[in-house]
């Protein structure tokens, strides 16, 4: 280890025995003249201009990112727009054919409502629900809609005593 260190010391001494040349006065003249020329030609940049420039660049990058995100989102959701839904849900409905059906006025109103509310909109849905509620309220509540009341106010499923005796 000591021998190695001694040899390394020799290498250092050998290197120190040599030297590198210094820049000549001609080189100094050439370089300083050129540097001063550039110094005088190029105006000094204002120190505050650098952070302002960085800020502007950051803002521009942020705007670009937001615009790209919006554009991408619009493109992706284009197929789900109201027009497309309307076209997809539109089915040929022969309203006249419905006149042959029972409850035709009621069904026709529903069909017409359905046509009007094809666009997905909260207010339209609320109106739709409100209208349906009103229609259901207005619907005739005749006897046919109600089950017939049992005779004597009792259920027909429970046999009375008289008929029960007749079986025996």
């Amino acid at each position, binding site marked *: 280890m000591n021998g190695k260190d001694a040899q390394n010391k020799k290498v250092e001494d*050998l290197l120190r025995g*040599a030297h*590198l040349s210094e820049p000549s006065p001609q*080189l100094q003249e050439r370089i300083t003249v050129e*540097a001063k020329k550039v*110094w005088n030609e190029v105006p000094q940049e204002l*120190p505050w201009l650098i952070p302002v420039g960085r800020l502007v660049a950051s803002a521009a990058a942020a705007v670009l990112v937001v615009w790209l995100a919006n554009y991408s989102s619009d493109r992706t959701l284009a197929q789900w727009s109201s027009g497309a839904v309307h076209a997809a849900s539109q089915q040929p409905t022969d309203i006249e054919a419905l006149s042959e059906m029972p409850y035709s006025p009621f069904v026709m109103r529903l069909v017409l409502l359905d046509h009007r509310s094809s666009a997905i909109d909260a207010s339209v849905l609320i109106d739709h629900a409100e209208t349906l509620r009103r229609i259901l309220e207005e619907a005739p509540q005749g006897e046919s809609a109600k089950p017939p009341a049992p005779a004597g106010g009792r259920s027909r499923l429970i046999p009375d005593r008289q008929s029960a005796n007749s079986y025996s």
Partner: protein
Amino acid sequence: MDENLAENELRAALADNDPAAVELLWNHYASDLFAFLQVVLCSRHDAEDVLQTVFVRIARKRHRLAGARNLDAYVYQIARNEAFRLISRRKKEQTAGVESESWLMVAESHPKPSDLAEQLQAALARLPQPQREVIVMKVYKQKTFLDISRLLGLPVNTVASRYRYGIEKLRTLLGDFIS
């Protein structure tokens, strides 16, 4: 203390946008940078060209130098960048520098000065770039490891190990002269 005074004077000239700063820069850095560039580029002519490029760049971007926390490190970084740019351009163009150019001198008192200079140049040229940088600063500019670490922006231990590896490699390459 003189170093600090010179640096303060230089900073003041840079802040005032005074062209006299060029002279101050020359007095402060030219000698060290020229030695550094000669060893990094293994060419005196290339070192002259790159030194000029470094000073012109500093003059153009002087506002940045004025705002730099560590002037020395900033200037050395410019010098390194310019040197590497030239090296990579040479590699791309596959052109070599001036062959057999002497950039290291040995005192005439030595028995075979030209032989030694040639061998030393060849051995230094075979060292990896980082080791060469450290050796030139330590041996030829008498800088401490701490100074070198500050200039190159490296940990002191890295600088010391690069120096040790470089010297060991030179020991192998210069075996004939040592024994």
